[in-house]
């Protein structure tokens, strides 16, 4: 099925009007030897019935989260998505619309983006939000570039407590433009402030902190802000404070303006978007108003039409690649718009109380589970620090063995992560566990019982030849 409307007769009429006999006459200018002689070597085409069969036989090889008791997080979370979100986001009016450059026939898209920006500003305490970025990692990278454009300084101090894949993406993004990325070491699960002080100098453009950090721990951003203020005493410029936040957490934890963040970014997937094997995701980005001209990506503004009626349009476009070309604030053009729409609908449905309830339920569940797990002999919290919905556990056996054993019982126990230890050569392996509002007490109790059984079952220590797929899995 090729969705081509024209019949042979249509085509012939058109070729006649064009004034050629055959299609090949239209491409006669292409040197003969450049043209393919044969069809592409692809599978023979399937009908609608056949492709559905093929897909569902492939899908039967997958196991979705519903079928398993999953405690996976690490950047993508299994939060509840109300069905009303799907009913709106799947409407062709939103799905097949183009980027809203023609404002007069795109007011639907433009208005929801304006509402999205308003919600993100309220959530983060910032004054301007763009229409979205590719994902949390690239948003963090773009925030560093944005800071550097603003203050013309070239060193970024990035906490080691960031999701490690964010640090990788940041490095890939900043390597080319000559920004030096310095990692601030971790101390006891949080950013080491002394090291932050030591690393900063006249060239420090920004400090990047994730909170809750990769280990789920709430960083003391008030102290970090104070530290940034202190190090910039007697210096011309104060480095910009960039925070990476879990948007769900912001319903109960400090709005980043409370600790003077200048740019706030994060992964938005948790807001109304499903995991989809890690994509599409979307990054949100908001900042103080004085950074508006340095912001990457699309921004929608309210204005009027020529008759004075309220209308919306893309604004501050002079920052963007289609106007400014090599001097643009970023190369970004397509973003993840439909995911931002899902987030907008989600935030409206959940409203003031719903988002707070989601955050509270997730936190309470996480703390209950952490307490129950640490009651098992040999399991301890890796860090005794306040955490949100995710926590790292030291386990009596290697986490990968636990993950593998629990996998057999339909649990996704969590993610194995490595933490560099100051006093040891090798790094510690921890189990990172995430909990959302979707978990019932029974889900968590079952998980705890399964963990207990793993420890008491003798062969769980046995690392025989079963190097199965489960352990081949890479974290990043």
């Amino acid at each position: 099925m090729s969705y081509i409307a024209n019949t042979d007769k249509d085509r012939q009429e058109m070729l006649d009007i064009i004034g050629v006999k055959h299609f090949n006459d239209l491409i006669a200018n292409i040197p003969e030897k450049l043209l393919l002689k044969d069809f592409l070597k692809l599978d023979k085409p399937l009908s609608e019935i056949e492709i559905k069969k093929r897909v569902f036989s492939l899908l039967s090889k997958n196991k979705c989260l519903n079928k398993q008791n999953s405690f996976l997080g690490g950047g993508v979370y299994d939060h509840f998505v109300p069905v009303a979100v799907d009913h709106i986001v799947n409407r062709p009016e939103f799905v097949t619309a183009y980027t809203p450059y023609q404002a007069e026939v795109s007011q639907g898209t433009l208005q929801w983006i304006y509402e999205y920006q308003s919600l993100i500003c309220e959530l983060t305490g910032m004054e301007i939000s763009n229409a979205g970025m590719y994902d949390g990692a690239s948003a963090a990278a773009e925030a560093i570039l944005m800071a550097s454009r603003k203050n013309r300084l070239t060193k970024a101090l990035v906490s080691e407590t960031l999701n490690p894949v964010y640090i990788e993406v940041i490095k890939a993004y900043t390597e080319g433009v000559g920004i030096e990325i310095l990692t601030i070491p971790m101390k006891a699960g949080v950013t080491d402030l002394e090291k932050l002080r030591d690393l900063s100098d006249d060239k420090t453009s920004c400090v990047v902190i994730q909170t809750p950090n990769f280990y789920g721990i709430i960083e003391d951003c008030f102290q970090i802000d104070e530290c940034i203020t202190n190090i910039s005493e007697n210096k011309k410029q104060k480095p910009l404070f960039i925070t990476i936040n879990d948007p769900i957490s912001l319903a109960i934890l400090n709005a980043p303006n409370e600790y003077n963040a200048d740019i706030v970014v994060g992964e938005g997937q948790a807001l109304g978007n499903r995991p989809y094997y890690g994509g599409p995701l979307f990054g949100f980005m908001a900042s103080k108003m004085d950074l508006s001209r340095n912001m990457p990506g699309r921004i929608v503004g309210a204005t009027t039409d020529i008759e004075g009626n309220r209308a919306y349009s893309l604004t501050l476009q002079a920052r963007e690649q289609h106007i400014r070309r090599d001097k643009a604030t970023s190369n970004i053009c397509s973003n993840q718009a439909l995911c931002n729409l899902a987030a907008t609908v989600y935030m409206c449905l959940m409203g003031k109380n719903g988002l707070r309830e989601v955050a509270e339920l997730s936190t309470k569940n996480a703390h209950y589970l952490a307490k129950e797990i640490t009651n098992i002999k040999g399991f301890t919290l890796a860090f005794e620090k306040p955490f949100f919905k995710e926590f790292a556990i030291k386990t009596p056996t290697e986490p990968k063995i636990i993950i593998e054993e629990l996998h057999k019982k339909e649990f996704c126990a969590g993610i194995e992560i490595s933490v560099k230890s100051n006093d040891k050569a090798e790094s510690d392996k921890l189990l990172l566990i995430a909990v959302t509002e979707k978990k019932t007490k029974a889900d968590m109790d079952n998980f705890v019982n399964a963990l207990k059984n793993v420890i008491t079952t003798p062969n769980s220590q046995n690392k025989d030849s079963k190097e199965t797929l489960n352990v081949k899995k890479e974290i990043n």
Partner: protein
Amino acid sequence: MEKLIFDKSVHNRKGYSLPKSEVDININDIIDKKFLRKEELKFPEVSELDVMRHFIALSHLNHFIEKGFYPLGSCTMKYNPKLHESIVSSQLFSDIHPHQTLDTVQGILEIMYELQNDLTEISGMAQTTLQPVAGAHGEFTGLKIIKAYHKAKGNHHKNVIIFPDSAHGTNPASVTLAGMKVVEISSDEKGMVDLEALKKVVCENTAGFMLTNPNTLGLFETQIEEISKIIHSVDGLMYMDGANMNALLGLVKPGHIGFDVMHYNLHKTLSTPHGGGGPGSGAVSVREDLVKFLPYPLVDFNTAPLCKGDLGEDEDCAGYFFLNSDHKDTSIGKIHSFHGNFAINVRAWIYIKTLGGKGLREVSENAIINANYIRKKLENVYLVPHNHTYCMHEFVASGNRQKEKGIKTLDIAKRLLDKGVHAPTIYFPLIVPEAIMIEPTETESKQTLDDFINAMLEINEECNTNPDLVLNAPSNTPVKRVDDVKAVKDLNVRHIL
């Protein structure tokens, strides 16, 4: 205009249901007050029906493919099959976590593996990464690969990317982001790469050449072999911006005509939806010796059994799919948290599987016929500057004749909105004054094209008979012409809650 959702909020109204907490824990006991939000969130309080009505009212203000024609040059607004949307909405796709163990995602990896291979076949290259999520993201990836190639050879001085003045704005912006320098050359009078101009700027520092082919005038760069010879003679690499790949499917393989790296826009060529601006997908294909620089991991297949012996005769023992990061040390790294826009890539995979090799070739053939048909029908009324040869899947007209009567291309575009057609791409490429860039795509019928042609001809008539109608257009859209200047001058980017 529709009221903002915030203006519909009523204290204590509710649009969700959540379970009650089953655990006896108080937030204040577990999190220091210092870390708790000081001001409560002022999100709207609305019912589910309020939300449904609001967003459906907004949806009615949009143009979209199922509503009407979208002749947007360089954007390939083809029909997005409903089959794709229906299949992708399965929970067995949506509720898969990227950190799940490989044995629970074999179906997913098989799709990714096949798509890598199929895109590689279409491009005529050696391997493909699915990690970039947009065209510009793909450009950035491809340029970093070019940079890595030169760096690996110790050629740190090779840091200049050349491109013609007809290039998309993302090209120079991506070069800057990749940390290289841009050199722009003028096109010749036929709208093609000017070989003499190219020879003048090519030197030891040339890292590569970035070209859209067919170019943004919709013309196939027939001197492509000479161009690539010039660039390769200084060990530069040829980058193809695949925005116009809808013209080449099954006709020409970029890897066979001199290109070394290319990105696809799956949301253009392979019919994945545009989503009001995204998510798209920008897969990148490269030639053999560049594979080691691709972002990691790639999806790979191991013919060894899934696990040693203990599955017996189970069919899984035929082998398994996995994420291969063996090239991590040479790779440009990671440019996305996980594996790109998986859900978008699935749609492209379905598209390829349902069309096959012959079907894909027919896509390009019909796209080319449709574009030439419109061009032929309009060229007596609208100026078509580069008509020395047939066009590929799109062409660029100019509103210069109408401008002489005081009517700009912008006015013509806005008048089209009144006639139920989305405006073409306008004022691009920059080398054509008053540019009107028209791309019909293969999914539009002759009848739709005829309606569009008539609309364009009518507007030209209106320029003579009733110019005010065109100058004040649009008049029957949800809002009248929008004041973009005011949007910048009186910047208002959020409703303060």
